[in-house]
């Protein structure tokens, strides 16, 4: 079994950004009890995956919003109870505003060696729509400082912000690379859960890219990063060779990950488990039994094979031909048909013993993936 990774969800934020679809709270009244619960959960589930962990990932919410000692205490529990390799990748998601020199130093002291910064954009007019606390200037400062202090730095970039143009997006991406980030995650703004953005789209549809525009933007980002030496190793992630996120790769490779905290997900190689999505319920359940699992799905046989190929195809190198060919005859005729069509139109290709999505195929990946669910 490959080494496992741990995810810890930190739901607290200074502000609830309109587009965010994750568990995020601005009320910190539960913070103390929450971190106690996370540590109890670690105690209770310490044997669920085999240690030592080789990745630890604090996501949110805004992990940088809470005191560093809280993260340190959680890390301590993980080290003591499950073991964390000395070479482990330890990532913390940060908001640019939280990265005062002191906070950063504290995180480094805890052993954090990778910072993922929620930059989103380096244009103030775009950041306004996202209701981010930071402005472009503070984001630049934060990125430079983290690059200097930590080295392994990822920046999140958003495609499809109201008013964003191909030019402003390219500027953001270029600046980030110039500032020295080693990793970029780009994703599409989903406005469905953001009523203010839905309304804005109704009033001023011209501010939003249509699907084809969004696809062009993604290609712009890809072109810009690849030409600067950041390789797209997964659909929405680019990195300088050697700086790929080891933790995120585990999700696509179906390696074991254990998630602690509200709404966290775990996978032990066979079964997917999800924790309660309510912070209050999470704290209560952990208080009662040490765990807060609310759903469990065990995947076996064909379902597992399909999922492995589906996830693997998100990676630049795709999946092994043998793995794909073993699955193919077991699929329903209509699904086989769909995949054959994808090969025919060069959306899927065979290369060097592997099956992978082509550039065009990436853009319509859901059409292909739907044959694998």
């Amino acid at each position: 079994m490959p080494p496992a990774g741990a995810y810890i969800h930190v739901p607290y934020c200074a502000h609830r950004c309109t587009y965010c679809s994750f568990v995020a709270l601005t009320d910190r009244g539960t913070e103390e009890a929450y971190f106690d619960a996370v540590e109890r959960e670690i105690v209770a589930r310490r044997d669920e995956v085999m240690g030592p962990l080789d990745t630890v990932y604090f996501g949110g919410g805004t992990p940088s919003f809470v005191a560093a000692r809280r993260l340190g205490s959680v890390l301590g529990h993980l080290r003591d109870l499950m073991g964390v390799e000395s070479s482990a990748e330890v990532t913390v998601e940060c908001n640019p505003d939280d990265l005062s020199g002191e906070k950063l130093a504290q995180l480094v002291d805890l052993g954090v060696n990778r910072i993922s910064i929620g930059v989103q954009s380096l244009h103030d007019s775009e950041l306004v729509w996202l209701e981010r606390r930071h402005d472009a200037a503070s984001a630049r400062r934060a990125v430079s400082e983290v690059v200097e202090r930590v080295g392994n730095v990822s920046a999140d970039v958003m495609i499809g912000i109201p008013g964003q143009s191909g030019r402003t997006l390219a500027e953001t991406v270029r600046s980030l690379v110039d500032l020295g980030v080693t990793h970029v995650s780009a994703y599409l703004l989903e406005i469905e859960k953001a009523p203010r953005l839905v309304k804005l789209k109704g009033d001023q549809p011209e501010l939003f890219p249509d699907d084809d525009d969004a696809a062009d933007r993604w290609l712009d980002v890809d072109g810009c990063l690849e030409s600067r030496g950041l390789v797209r190793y997964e659909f929405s992630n680019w990195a300088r060779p050697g700086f790929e996120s080891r933790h995120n790769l585990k999700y696509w490779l179906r390696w074991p990950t254990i998630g602690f905290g509200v709404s966290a997900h775990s996978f032990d190689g066979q079964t997917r488990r999800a924790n309660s999505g309510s912070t209050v319920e999470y704290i209560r359940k952990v208080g009662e039994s040490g765990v807060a699992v609310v759903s469990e799905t065990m995947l076996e046989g064909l379902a597992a094979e399909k999922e492995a190929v589906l996830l693997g195809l998100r990676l630049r190198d795709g999946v092994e031909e043998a793995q794909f060919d073993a699955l193919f005859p077991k699929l329903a005729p209509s699904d086989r048909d769909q995949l054959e069509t994808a090969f025919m139109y060069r959306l899927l290709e065979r290369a060097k013993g592997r099956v992978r999505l082509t550039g065009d195929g990436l853009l319509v990946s859901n059409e292909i993936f739907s044959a694998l669910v």
Partner: protein
Amino acid sequence: MTDPTYIRNFSIVAHIDHGKTTLSDRILEITGALSAREMTEQVLDDNPIERERGITIKARSVTLNYRSEDGHTYLFNLIDTPGHVDFTYEVSRSLAACEGAVLVVDATQGVEAQTLANAYLAIHNDLTIVPCINKIDLPSAVPAMAREQIEEVIGIPAQHAPLTSGKVGTGVKDLLEHIVHDIPPPAGDPGAPLRALLFDSWFDVYRGVTCLVRVKDGSIRPGTKIRLMGTGVAAEVQEVGIYTPKQQVVSELSVGEVGYLIAGIKDLHATKVGDTVTEAERPCQEPLPGFQDVKPMVFASIFPTESDEYENLRDAMEKLRLNDASFTFEPESSTALGFGFRCGYLGLLHMEIVQERLEREFNLSLVTTAPSVPYRVKTTRGELLEISNPVKLPEPQYIDEIEEPYILATIITKDEFLGGLLALAEERRGKQVSLEYAGTQRAVLKYEFPLNEVVLDFYDKLKSISRGYASFDYQLIGYRPGDLVKLDILINGDAVDALAFIVHRAKSATKGRALVEKMKEMIPQQMFEVIIQAAIGSKILARSTVRALRKNVLAKCYGGDITRKKKLLEKQKEGKKRMKKVGRVDLPQEAFLAVLRVDD
């Protein structure tokens, strides 16, 4: 037996929504067939889909006792008739069972196309017409206008027509007295061999086929060995009875009487409407006139969206056919859509009802193709073919001549819409037979149309041009030659058989262009470019392109929530399942009906 002098057999006919059913119910209530408490509204329509659409499909009869002001009690047989143009033949057979017809005219609407068509059918069957002006309780009622139109348009006197309100009951007694005095009693010879008109039949699993009959001569009782003269089927009567409207067994049905018979017949198709029932051993000399084997005039194919639903679809159709002798189907195999059925219907409404019942009552997901009409093709080798499926049309070089069915249509409209309707008629290859004014602002148009110009969306167009006012009725008048061609629709270069249709050559290019544009709107973007072409033989008339889908990706997954992503994908896949794969292209169900949605 009841003395025929005191029997009155009649139907109530009307344009749709002129209040026929409410008036019938009121008559039932007044004659004591049902107490007010037992009345549920509109008891004669007992199929939910009929009720929903406000139309009556199956004929029913009800036997009522009415004590007239002359002191005698009369036996009324009220025979309900189907209320739609598709069922003209059934209406005419129901009327043939009567001596009279109450012609209901809505006092707010006046004479409409179906009023006229029904009046003509009644006159054709030598019936005495009792006009009746209904809905006089409404503030907008203008009885004088309705009266004038009855006299001018239909040409029957109406100065004494009862003024009624089925809703509140006004004038219904007066109407019943008119029925007693104006409609003649039935004539016939009680001693002659049995001669009875079969005017409705239906099937149920417990008793088999029940037939509604009107005895013209002789009598019928349990034990009578009967023969149906048209189909030749022989059987022994087990039970006769009447509906009051509750089913009530009687010892015999005699001259002039109307009731049901059950004779152990299991197949509805053996009991055709319009057939003559006679005694097997002592047959009558001549069958009753007017019997026809009704042929479907509208054809369309039905395919299950999922091929494994084929058997379920067949079972459902067989169940429907048990009770609908005019619905036909035969297996069909389409290259594009797989296995399905070519179905025949009396008309468009009949088609819609059957398709809706299949989807609703049997919970099937179906792809239906655009309706077509039966063509007669003379080949160069001298064969005569009946083509009810465009796919089967021979290649042009083997066709000597094609004939298509024509109808005589009656359209009644306010004159302000005349211009638009004349243009529509023109565009649909209509030939004007007459244009008359009836009263002020009211025009009666008669046109001959090729049926295929009417089956698509004529009725919807008519209604939208006239803002709902114009009414329409038609009858078939035979076959005539036409310059017709098969228009093929090609998807990425392959002709899709289920999309082919037959069109007049002069309209083929316009139609083809409009259709490919319409389909472009309906077909979702796919992983690749979809090219839609319209062609006659190898000649491409029009082309449009659905661009390849550029983007269909989900945002990044966080925190390992793979399950959520998969759920989204599954949802997307579910949506696709409702589409039909033709070659590699997913076509939504409505694309097969695009031809109905084309704005000419």
